């Protein structure tokens, strides 16, 4: 991918950028990504993104936490070292619920976030893309990686759809 040119348009507001993105998709331009100060609703469809799969990951982590916690507690209390604590049965299971619940939440939460970070490649060492164009402040960007020769048409298209400016950049990475 190195050496590809990116065409980046900038908009002032969420509504205009969303309209432009929709238009670009309709016009057959494949938008590489949008960069916005806050999530612009409707952009998923405008960019043609599948819904996030992290919910399933979260469920997986939660189940792992739940079974791990229940299993560990049960193994400890009944098999590894059964102890007579307050005359209760070794397998007195209601007592195992709170810890199992907490570990479920902990595993699910930390696991999902970790998966997200790993999946999106976020780390302290990561270089942000399109830094300095104001996407974290008040600018709304659409980035395209057009085929060679299509840059000029794209630029015009974007300006036509309300872009304040359009620039060509080296693609990151």
């Amino acid at each position, binding site marked *: 991918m190195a050496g590809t040119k990116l065409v980046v348009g900038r908009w*002032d*507001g*969420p*509504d205009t950028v969303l309209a432009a993105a929709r238009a670009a998709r309709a016009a057959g331009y494949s938008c590489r*990504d*949008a*960069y*916005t*100060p*806050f999530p612009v*609703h409707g*952009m998923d469809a405008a*960019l043609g*993104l599948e819904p*996030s799969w*992290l*919910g399933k990951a979260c469920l997986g982590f939660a189940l792992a936490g739940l079974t791990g916690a229940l299993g*560990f507690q049960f193994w*400890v*209390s009944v098999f*590894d*070292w059964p102890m007579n604590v*307050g005359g*209760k049965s070794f397998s*007195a299971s209601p*007592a195992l619920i*709170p*810890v199992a*619940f*907490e*570990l479920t*939440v*902990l595993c*699910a*939460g*930390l696991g*999902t*976030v970790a998966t*997200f*970070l790993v*999946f*999106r*490649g*976020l*780390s*302290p*060492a*990561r*270089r*942000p*893309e*399109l*830094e*300095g164009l*104001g*996407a*974290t*402040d*008040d600018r709304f*960007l659409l980035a395209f990686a057009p085929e060679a020769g299509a840059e000029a048409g794209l630029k015009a298209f974007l300006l036509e759809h309300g872009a304040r400016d359009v620039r060509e950049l080296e693609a990151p990475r």
Partner: protein
Amino acid sequence: MSATACKLREPLVDGHKSCRDVSEDVCRIAEGSPTRLWYAGLAASSTALAVGAFLVFHQVWTGIGVWGLNKTVGWSWDITNFVFWVGIGHAGTLISAILFLFRQKWRTSINRSAEAMTIFAVMCAGVFPLIHMGRPWLAYWVMPYPNPMGPLWVNFRSPLLWDVFAISTYFAISAVFWYFGLLPDLATMRERASGVRRRVLAAASLGWDGSHRTWQHYETVYLLLAGLATPLVFSVHTIVSFDFATSVIPGWHTTIFPPYFVCGAIFSGFAMVLTLMLIARKAVRLEAYITLRHVDAMCKVILLTSMIVGLAYGTELFTAWYSGNPYEQFAFLNRIRGPYKAYYWTMVFCNVVVPQLFWSARVRRSVPAVFTMSLLVNVGMWMERFVIITTSLHRDYLPSSWRMYHPTFVEVGTFVGSFGLFFTLFFLFCRFLPMVAMSEVKGVLDHGRH
């Protein structure tokens, strides 16, 4: 998103702010030099923290006997403070997670500080179970780790162990949730910064660039975290209440505790959020973001929870009377008429009587009145925990063991120190991190649609 719908409501942010204004207003606090009020606040709170830290050192070095506890009353201020601080923490999670799930957009201005408050409050709370141990240097024994003792695990039947898991999970999830929300704002600040500051922010923001592909998963994760935090917050105070509810001590052993504690936690937490917000909007000039509408909304929550708490007080008394259990009956009579009755009636006054003033809209929008009442509610809620813990313990089954408890300066000072820790962290947070969730506020602005 309908512009007409918004028109019918008051704006969530005053002064027709733009995205740029939001970035400017919020980042300014962290970038500029702090106000004099901020310096004064930090000085006061860090002094309190230093006193508290010294007293904790003194207590650990000399022995827990420097507290006023005795053979009958084994817990008092320590666990009162613990429950108090955990309760405070709950409002933050409630605002950031539950209101998020309910799509209450007004939360965006205050959720960041409320979450910070949660984390700091849980830190304060965590200190107390740690230092209340006779041998805090062995505190790691409460974790089940493989060891050369057999291995000897831990007692999964102990509510205190459940606490360990609940509090540490709560802290971990709250901290992750908070930091997760900070990522876009740290990126905003990074873009405005240079030099070392920029490099630190670059690392801290994990290379955030506002990519919508990231935003899409980010929103999912945020929703999941909110969804996880919501039952978590209920479970935490439920488990804290189990410390008492599963015991055999009259006045503790009651099934009403979980909802009672959770409501009390929300109640006290909202009061603390109000206290903090009212200080913060003055100290760092965020009146436009933390508006009277926010104050008003929170007062309504306080009023509601106050009535639930009041109902719980009544129910408790009724249950004790109706149970026919003489120990239970005496425990509550002793709260009302015993040697600690002043605490009980202060609690009733602060928690049930005072909040009734919030029926009046004028009171709800009067900053001095709300500030005073929020403080009173916090006092009342501290009293509630003290009443539950101490008066139940000091006269339980065998009259031969009945004893009075009086705190020493060490306990009082340690409690003050926990406020020091809390406010020191909060002031530092105000100074160095975006106090308002910029990306979220930007999302609820009327972008040129007014």
